[in-house]
Every structure is written in C-alpha cells, then in structure tokens.
C-alpha cells in the first residue's frame, strides 16, 4: 500500500493528481468530438498557437488563460482567413500558421522579461502548480464541462451532419466557434499538465481509444473520460516512483491503453478482426 499512499503525503502530489485527473477528464470528453470531427490537426495547431498568448499575458500580469484564449481563437481565424483568400490547401495553412505562432512564442519567451520557464510551457509543470493556476484550471474545466454537456447533442449533430443541423435552423457557425473556443480553453488547461507539445495527445488519444471500443456515442464519451482520467492518475504515480517526466508518463499510459484497444477491442481490435475474417 505504501506505493499508493506514500505520494499522497506530499501536498504537491495531491494537487498534481487532482489537476491531472481533472484536466484528463475534460480533455477526454472533448477528444470524442475532436476525433469524430477530424480536428486532430486543429487541436495540435491551437495548442501550439496559444503559447505567445501565455507569454504576453504573464508579461502584462493578466490571467494566462485569457492570453491563451485570444491567441488560440486568433490562430483559427488566421487559418480560416488564409485558406479562404488563397489557393493553399488547408493542412498546409494549418502547419504554416501554428508554427508561425509558436515561433513568435519562442522569441517572446527569450526577449520578454518574466519568470516564465520555457520548459514548463513546453513540457508542463503539473508537480509545481501554484494555487492561482489551480483556481484558473478549475474555472476553465468547469466552464468547458458545462458547455460540452449543454450542447452535447447539437455538437454531435454538427460533427455528424452539419447540413442537416443547418437545415433545421441550428446555428452551425455558432457551434463551430463554440467548439473552437472550448478547444482553446482546454488546450490552456492541458498545457499546464503535459505542456504544449503533448497536449494534442490528451485531445486525441482517449477519443481514439474509446472509438475502437463502442458504436454508441454516450458510451464512447464515458470510456474516453475514464481512460483519460485513469491515464493521468497512473501516469503521475509512475512518474513519481520512476522519477521521470510526468507529461511523458501520462501520455505513454494513454498510448498504452490505445494499443491495448487497437489489439484487443472486441469488434475493431486487429486480433479479433483477423479471427472474424478467418472464420
């Protein structure tokens, strides 16, 4: 039992477990929509693009989530604008815009005088979360969960058949920006736990794992949230006992769960798919 209880004697570990489980849960919920809408690349883009926002917000003494939100939504607007006004294909535009934003963040971090640690932004710092950061994370995750639960049917329809959504009078433009805003907010929350570089894993992997396990959306969300929370908790423990990168451990556990589903899922796992083909 010591392996389970010993870490809990440290206040920073309790906080790290809580934050990463919370953020994991929210990312897991959102990841269902990301994988179904095909927005994995968009998630990657937004999570990188929030970086200059974080630096600017810290430099101005504003809440970091505000800066991140502005830049996250701004990057998506920029992507949409360039795509519409030029002949360049969307994936190229996404790659171009988010690296530009990210590079701006790198330059700002090195030039703006602040106590920001670049590695904390890049790789997360869940073990050193301050109480004001904790409050912001709580606020963000609460807001995101409420929005996703209230609009879950509309968002599902928006992912599945936007034309039908539109033709029954649902404002699909609003849903588009709602999902983007939620993505930006969640990216900020995820940034604290696993950092800019690995946030996209939190936004994609749980949804992908759950998608291999079920054909029902409600079950998919439950499975995604459960696998994501479980990965966060196991990841934090593994990182404590092996004294290794927390972000790396969390994402590795997620990847491990995905591989299990990929191999063993009842219907869509490759082992079972082979068996049903053979029979």
């Amino acid at each position: 039992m010591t392996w389970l209880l010993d870490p809990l004697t440290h206040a920073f570990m309790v906080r790290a477990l809580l934050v990463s489980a919370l953020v994991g849960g929210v990312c897991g919920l959102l990841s269902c929509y990301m994988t179904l809408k095909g927005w994995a690349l968009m998630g990657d883009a937004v999570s990188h693009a929030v970086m200059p926002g974080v630096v600017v917000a810290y430099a101005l003494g504003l809440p970091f989530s505000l800066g991140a939100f502005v830049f996250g939504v701004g990057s998506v607007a920029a992507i949409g604008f360039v795509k519409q006004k030029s002949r360049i294909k969307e994936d190229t535009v996404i790659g171009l815009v988010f690296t530009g934003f990210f590079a701006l963040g790198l330059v700002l971090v090195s030039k703006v005088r602040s106590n920001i640690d670049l590695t904390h932004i890049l790789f997360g710092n869940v073990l050193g979360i301050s109480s004001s950061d904790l409050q912001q994370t709580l606020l963000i995750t609460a807001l995101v969960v409420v929005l996703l639960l209230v609009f879950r049917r509309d968002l599902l329809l928006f992912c599945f058949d936007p034309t039908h959504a539109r033709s029954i009078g649902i404002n699909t433009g609003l849903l588009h920006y709602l999902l983007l805003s939620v993505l930006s907010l969640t990216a900020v929350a995820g940034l604290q736990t696993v950092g800019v570089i690995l946030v996209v894993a939190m936004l994609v992997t749980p949804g992908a794992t759950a998608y291999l396990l079920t054909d029902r959306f409600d079950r998919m969300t439950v499975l995604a949230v459960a696998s994501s929370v479980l990965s966060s908790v196991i990841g934090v423990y593994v990182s404590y006992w092996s004294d290794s990168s927390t972000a790396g451990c969390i994402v590795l556990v997620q990847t491990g769960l995905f591989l299990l589903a990929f191999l063993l899922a009842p219907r869509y796992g490759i082992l079972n798919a082979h068996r049903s083909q053979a029979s």
Partner: protein
Amino acid sequence: MSPAMQPIATCPEPRIAVEQLCVDYNGEVALYDASLTLPAGCICGLVGMNGAGKSTLFKALTGFVRPSHGRIRINGLSVLAAQQQQAVAYVPQSEGIDCQFPVSVWDVVMMGRYGSMNLLRIPRPSDRVAVRDALQRVDLLDLARRPIGALSGGQRKRAFLARAIAQRASVLLLDEPFNGVDVRTETLMAQLFLQFRSEGRTILISTHDLSHVSDFCDLVVLINRTVLAYGNTSEVFTPENLARTFGGMVPKR
C-alpha cells in the same frame, strides 16, 4: 393521432419560390438568374450535369450559401424562418456521411426532432412516437438499435428519409436518392414519394438518372448554370431541352 401522421400544414404560398437567384463563390458564378416555383404536393426532378449548379441550388435552399442576388421563399417565408419552422429536410447522399460514426439508426432519426426540442434536446414521449412512426414507414423499426455503419446503402438511405419524416418537413431535398440503392429500397422510396405528394409535401430530387424522372416526377427542372426549362415532365423532357442541358451529349434514357 401520432405526430408523424398528422397532415402537413397547408400554405397558400408556393412551397418553393426562387426568383432570379444568383450565387457566386469568390467571384466565380455557380448559378445565375435561376427562377422556379414549386406548388405544394409535387415531385420535381432536378436534372443537370455535375457542376451545373444542382448542389449550389440545394445549398442556397438550406442556407449554406448566401445568394449574391435574388431571393428564395419557402412556404412564403425566408429560408431561415422556414428552417426554424422545421419546413426543410435535406436527405444527403450516403457518400457524404461518415458511416463509421457511433450513432444508431434511432439516434439518426431522432436528430430530425432536434429542431422542435428544447436546448438540451431531451426527447419527449411525442418525439419517441414520431421516431417510431417514421421508422415504421420506411420499414426499419427492427433495425432501430443498429449502428448506422451496420446498414446497407439502401437501408441507410431509408434511415435518412425517416429522419425527414420525423421532422415533419413540408419540403424535402433529396440528393441522388437512387444512387447505390437496392430494388426493395427503390420500390419503397417510390411509394413513399407518392404518399408524400398526397400529404402535400413537395419533393425536389436531384438526379442524373433520367429514367426515374420520366417514371414518377410531375415536374422537372433542367439546370445548367441557370434554369434552362421547367414545367410538366411531358412538356419539358424533350430531346432538344436535354441536349441544351447536357451540352449536346444526351445520356441514354
């Protein structure tokens, strides 16, 4: 009487009235000066080549593109107002749908009811009755719990028709409904279209299969960047008109 069986609201205005519609995408003209009027209770074929503007017209009727000129009235209302009254149903081509999506047939048909539910989209008993009735009419009640990915192409088509029925739309826009459909579904759909017509619904069918048009369309609209001709099928469906529609290349009938 169950909601799905209630008669469709009658309306003195034409179901669809399009006046001098122009649509362009970033300066490229997709449709110009297109006008047509469709009364309540008719089956109309929309015939044209790929890129002739069929899908642009559908997009304009579902509010996805804004006309650069002209206006559209559905039941005498603007497109948005008609949509908010659940008047317009769009039945997609099966290819346009992600059939790996984790929803059941029941879920898909229930989506037809979303517009008349509250914000949280929690089904009321009347919504469940409407979905059940709609599934019965397309002969899919037994498969209601199946994921849509487990259906055949024809069954999936019927599921989307059921969604339009559950929605109680008075205007149905169907995109290539007979593509990749089995004989059973084709017969059932043809019967349904006749029922829809007698219920006062107006059905606009985009197709490039001319034999279906002469089989059961009352009206036909020939389109090539604009409305070339429209009216009773027997009068409009002439070799000369078809030659204009298809640029001299008349497909086999």
